[in-house]
């Protein structure tokens, strides 16, 4: 399963629900405002660490760069649009809008 999250975790419970409904081995891809969760040392870092314990967590590079996010929670991997397309091709996707 691929889960995409496009909302800020500081404003919306999408990431929280995504983590609750994801299973070991699932992939969580942070896109758009969702990448704000990847910022290291934030109030939402424990939530992202919980996600990293069971899932692979990726963030979209274009959205990270646009928001000047360079100091990421350790374990978060970066992908690009091509990687995004591959993930969608390989998995059933749920968008946590």
């Amino acid at each position, binding site marked *: 399963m691929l889960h995409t999250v496009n909302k800020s975790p500081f404003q919306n419970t999408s990431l929280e*629900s995504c983590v609750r*409904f994801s*299973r070991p081995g699932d992939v969580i891809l942070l896109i758009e405002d969702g990448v704000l969760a990847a910022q290291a040392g934030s109030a939402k870092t424990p939530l992202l660490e919980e996600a990293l314990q069971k899932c692979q967590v990726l963030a979209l590079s274009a959205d990270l760069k646009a928001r000047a996010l360079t100091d990421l929670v350790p374990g978060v991997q970066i992908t690009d649009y091509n990687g995004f397309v591959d993930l969608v091709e390989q998995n059933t996707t*749920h968008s946590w809008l």
Partner: protein
Amino acid sequence: MAEDIKKIMFTVRKPPHGTIYVYEGLEVKLIMAAYDADISVVFMDDGVFAVKKGQDTKALGIKGFEATYGALVDYEITKVFVDRQSMEERGMTEEDLLVIGEDEDTEEPIKPQVVDSDEIAAMMAEQHNILAF
């Protein structure tokens, strides 16, 4: 052929009436029900408010959709689930849920099934497509 039937899940996470998501989602469900698909619907997060009984939208000047939800079983949409945690966090109980149809034989009202998040996660993993509203 059974193996050709697509498993399609609808997740409803938005509250009703503030935006058109829930209404549009319902329209899509009814359209998809016309095709040979294995449809399931899960209400989670604020989406659980969409299946609270007693919604009266007259003063908002909109039609509302409680009556349409009451016909889901007639459209052969019977796999309708509510996330227990979302429901309980919002002060709702099973008693608060609207009716989605009635049993053909006994005429007993049918309500959405309340399930835990791990059951929902397992169902999500089995789908061909998941549409979020």
